[in-house]
């Protein structure tokens, strides 16, 4: 059984994939606000797509698909490999909470975009605001984790 061991550290490739996904999902998410043309960001060569709302919408969805895959992969991996030997850190717990909230609000917002789905004005506003707030909270927690060197999980 000795060779049946696995590192709790994610592989470099997966880490890069995750960071890239988070970068594009955040950028395309903020691009849903009509600000990037106003504040010249979309004028930067190569960033013209940032004020193409259907393009950023599509990229946001594409990134969300990648994020869902990573999240479920890592959650399943934790349950399969590390549940009894590791615990989720406070930093990890905060990030899991924010990402779960983002997924939950995101799923409802995606559902709203299908024809025939009716959401009240207040529901839409709450979903929009919660989605933005959770993004800001997640980014803050992620930055704290990077600077303090906190991992998602740690050995018991």
């Amino acid at each position, binding site marked *: 059984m000795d060779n049946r061991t696995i590192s709790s550290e994610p592989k470099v490739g997966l880490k890069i994939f995750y960071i890239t996904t988070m970068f594009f999902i955040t950028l395309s998410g903020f691009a849903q606000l*009509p600000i990037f043309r106003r*504040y010249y960001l979309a004028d930067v060569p190569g960033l013209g797509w940032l004020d193409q709302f*259907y393009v950023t919408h599509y990229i946001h*969805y594409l990134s969300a698909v990648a994020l869902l895959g990573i999240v*479920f992969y890592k959650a*399943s991996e934790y349950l399969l490999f590390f549940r009894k030997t590791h615990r989720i850190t406070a930093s990890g717990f905060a990030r899991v909470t924010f990402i779960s909230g983002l997924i939950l609000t995101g799923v409802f917002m995606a559902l709203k975009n299908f*024809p025939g789905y009716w959401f009240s*004005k207040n529901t839409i*506003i709450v979903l929009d605001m919660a989605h933005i707030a959770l993004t800001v909270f997640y980014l803050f927690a992620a930055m704290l984790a990077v600077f303090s060197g906190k991992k998602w999980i740690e050995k018991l």
Partner: protein
Amino acid sequence: MGTNISRRQFLKTGAVAAAGLAAAGVPKVHATESEVDRQLATLIDISKCIGCEACVDACKEINEAKFPKPRKPFPKMYPSRVKAEDWSEQKDVRDRLTPYNWLFIQHAAVSIDGNEKEITIPRRCMHCVNPPCVKLCPWGAAVQKKNGISVIDQEICLGGAKCRNVCPWKIPQRQTGSGLYLDILPSLAGNGIMNKCDRCYNLIAEGRMPVCIESCPQDVQTIGHRKEIIRQAHELADSMKGYIYGETENGGTNTIYVSPVPFEELNEAIVKSEGMPSLEPIKDKMSEANNLATAFLIAPVAGFVAAIGKYYRMMKKGSQ
């Protein structure tokens, strides 16, 4: 850092994870057809329209109270590329859509059976079945009512004009100097309120007709549930050997035009500019992302399967 795992643990955690996935459920991603069928739609028989503009007058009159009342002078906006859009001194403009003119008559000189004829077409918001202006508004200021009417809430609209940008017909029109942005960061964010036809939703809620329908001396428009209106539109088109516009455009709208002249010809003949929408075929703008959204259901399963595969490989490696 490493950890040991057993077959028992594998089966147990695998079962828990699978149960979790199953319990999460799969949200229904397609509304039942009847929900869309029940939306309110209008049939516009172009052959009946004489361009008298009674509908334009009635629209202007009934919506007077809803029109923006900007505060002047407008706050200076930054950066300098942000321009004010002011129609408050041109309220009488009626040959295009403006914040003060939500319906106008478009003219097209065409030939029918060799005879030159001027066709007049009432134009306003198409009230899409799946309106991008509503679905992509980042702030919830544009809403679709249960009966399918899309409305911009002027109390909370910030005037970013994303709704106009994503509208295939560029219908919503901006008026600077009005709305919530004045109370937040008037110089740095927002630029007024967006305005468009709300199909007299408040009158409909009282059991009345939209005024453009009520005021028309020619009975150009008919209103009803979408399914019935589509049926009538096809019946009418068959009877006049005519053409239909709006049934499938942008995935379907609730404004169905029937014309004795092909819409390609009408589209060529009308003046198309800002506030003067085209009659060109429009593909479903929301469909690409919505099709991709089905992958939201596949991605979690793929992630779970990948983890199981990794575990299986570990087990296999350990048993050798």
